[in-house]
């Protein structure tokens, strides 16, 4: 194959520079072999927002005309490799430019490789990933989601580890020697070269068949034509009077059926209904109206509406009543309150397990100097 392309799906802002470094690395490596290439963002500038799934691409080719043929599409499809920089993206992505939920492997070509940074088992991730009509390979780079972002670049070598793995799964695009030479030239850091080579050696891909994966049909949305759209850039509010069940005192607000945006979420709140004092603060402060009011006056976070911002945890006055937990610990969007009502003891154990196994996840830095503290802790 003379043309090759890589799609990088990442968390907006938090991983922007990471995605850029990967795409630039692809082109630099291909250049070592006399090829030409281009690295570019799609859905990756304003209105890129914190955590929103965004994309960058790298395309390499032998000839300018081949390259142009590839670039004549807005979004390269049939990619050789799709990289997910955060394994929670495997549940699907809903960015500002896509309508509905896009499976993580949607633009991956037949027998291409999905490369994910994750500490999870491959099978667990396959259960998240939507089924695909053609087989592909899954390869993992063992790492928690790196937050090497726009504002602060936490140089944890995720960029070069992914580039080393890329040379392994897409050898037709460039050799590992070319990649290592490009990394050496670009970063002038032997340790980064070593990280890339180790990642190359460690990476193994496993095949995923058309029978494997999440069977759910992702929700979708047809864009209206200009005659159907309301004029004057008017968007009608949801009719809130139609919300709720009313009779038993519960209230479920009306929500947008086609714009759910929960793929933005990297953490979700788990609620301890036993300690909840019904103070209403989570419900009141949630910017996405994601709390359903239950018949018994509790607040159940609806996981199709929650973006995972963590405001509920921040405003809750009760210790460990609302706790944000890594999204990868969950397989579904089911109601926690329904689970609790059905089996209170079982829910208590489930809750304790989720909180106890809460992996570290950082959306950046809380205070000045935290980066240095983290580095010191990591070295210790």
């Amino acid at each position, binding site marked *: 194959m003379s043309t090759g392309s890589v799609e990088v799906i990442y968390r907006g802002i938090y991983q922007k520079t990471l995605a850029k470094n990967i795409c630039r690395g692809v082109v630099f490596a291909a250049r070592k072999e006399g090829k030409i290439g281009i690295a570019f963002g799609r859905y990756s500038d304003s209105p890129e927002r914190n955590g929103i799934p965004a994309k960058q691409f790298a395309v390499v080719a032998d000839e300018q005309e081949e390259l142009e043929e590839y670039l004549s599409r807005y979004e390269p499809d049939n990619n050789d490799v799709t990289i997910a920089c955060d394994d929670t993206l495997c549940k699907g992505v809903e960015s500002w430019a896509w309508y509905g939920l896009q499976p993580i492997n949607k633009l991956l070509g037949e027998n291409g490789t999905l490369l994910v940074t994750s500490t999870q088992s491959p099978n667990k991730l396959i259960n998240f990933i939507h089924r695909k009509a053609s087989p592909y390979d899954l390869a993992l780079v063992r790492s928690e989601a790196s937050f090497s972002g726009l504002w602060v670049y936490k140089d944890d070598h995720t960029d070069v580890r992914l580039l080393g793995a890329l040379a392994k799964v897409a050898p037709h695009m460039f050799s590992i020697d070319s990649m290592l030479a490009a990394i050496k030239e670009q970063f002038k850091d032997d340790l980064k070269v070593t990280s890339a080579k180790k990642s190359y050696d460690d990476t193994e891909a496993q095949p995923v068949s058309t029978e494997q994966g999440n069977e759910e049909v992702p929700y979708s949305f047809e864009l209206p034509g200009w005659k159907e*759209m*309301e004029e004057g850039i*008017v968007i009608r509010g949801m009719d809130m009077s139609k919300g709720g069940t009313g009779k038993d005192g519960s209230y479920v607000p009306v929500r947008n059926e086609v714009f759910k945006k929960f793929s933005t979420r990297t953490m979700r709140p788990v609620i301890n209904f036993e300690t909840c004092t019904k103070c209403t603060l989570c419900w009141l402060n949630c910017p996405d109206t994601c709390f359903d009011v239950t018949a018994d006056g509790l607040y159940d976070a609806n996981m199709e509406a929650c973006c995972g911002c963590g405001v509920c945890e921040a405003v809750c006055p009760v210790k460990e009543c609302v706790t944000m937990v890594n999204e990868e610990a969950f397989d579904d969007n089911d109601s926690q309150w329904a689970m609790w009502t059905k089996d209170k003891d079982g829910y208590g154990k489930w809750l304790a397990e989720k909180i106890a196994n809460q992996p570290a996840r950082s959306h950046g830095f809380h205070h000045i100097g935290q980066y240095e503290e983290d580095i010191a802790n990591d070295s210790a």
Partner: protein
Amino acid sequence: MTPPKAATAETLDGGAPVGGTEELISGSEAVAHAVRLADVDVLTAYPIRPYDTVMQYVSKLIADGEFDCEFIVAESEHSQFEIVKHASTVGARVFVGSSGVGWLYAFEALAVTAGLRVPMVAMVGNRALDDPGAFGVEHNDALAVRDLGWMLCWVATAQEALDTALIAYRVAEDPRVSLPCALSCDGAFLTHSQSIVNVPDQATVDSFLPPYDRKEKLLHPDNPITIAPQANEDWVMEIRKQSDAGMRRARDVITEAYDDFGAKFGREDEPFIERYMMEDAEIALVGMGTLAMPVKVAVRKMREQGQKVGFVRVRWFRPFPVEELQDALGGVAAVGVIDRDYGLGSAFYGGVLAGDLRTALYPLEDRPKVVSFIAGLGGREINTDNVITIAGMVSDAAEGGTTDDQDTYWIGVRE
């Protein structure tokens, strides 16, 4: 030019009742009366000459107890246009305006107004773009928004300014259109010149101009909507297409408005253009705004010499009156366009009106030559001798002389 009508109620030839009073007022004062008669709810102001004269007259109407509205003095033109944009969405009829670089200072607000389908009416007191301090008339200020969904019209007299302001509200607010409209009045020549104007009575205006009603687009707690959320490439083209459709529909709405205006006020004008001595014209001059007066005088002088010269004044520049101009100019041998604007680096380095007119006439099989003239910039006088010179060159072009229709001629510039 439409002659001023009688001072007291009477019945004109058309049988329409006409009331009102006769006043000796400037173009700006005439617009201020239109603002009063249209019962504008919110008006924003920021001083810049020559538009500021409207502010002065509206303030006086309010101070005299003749008019009541929210009169907001903004801290800049940008805010001025933003305030009325928002006021319009909550159902207020609005008036706004500016001149020259003041208008351009509001450009961000101007650019988004059409897409939002906000039917604001603005007066542009046409002014040069401020080569230090210059305040004489030039049309480049209003023309800067010519592709952005603003309806643009130019008037030649104070009477026409008053009448067209009322028509502008009716057209802009018509749900089929719902686009902003800028009424251009030549600085000094119109804004500061007083002439005798019939100021109509309120009842007649009310019978012509219905109240502003945004219906389902009203921003109100009882009608929960968002106006103008983030729009990206997946929406923008449809939004532009909607504005384009509104602009196309404006043609019929403008025609209807002029018909009804004629019936109710007794002043019958052709909607898009004014034709002067065009019936048997062999060559024609074309222009906008107050240059009509010296041109008409010159045309009469040339007619006395037996030259068959006519004049077409373009009232509505957006939507551009292609059919009317094809009809009016299709039969002449050559057209001289006198632009009180410049299009530096444009095709043949010509004026803005000349460029659009060439485009409009191009589909005609037997199209006339179009020669572009630039004159009267920065408020410089265009006198009858200039016009006679221009007409002579147009005749020369028609006869295959040395006047080149692929060149542009600056008239009245010192060599």
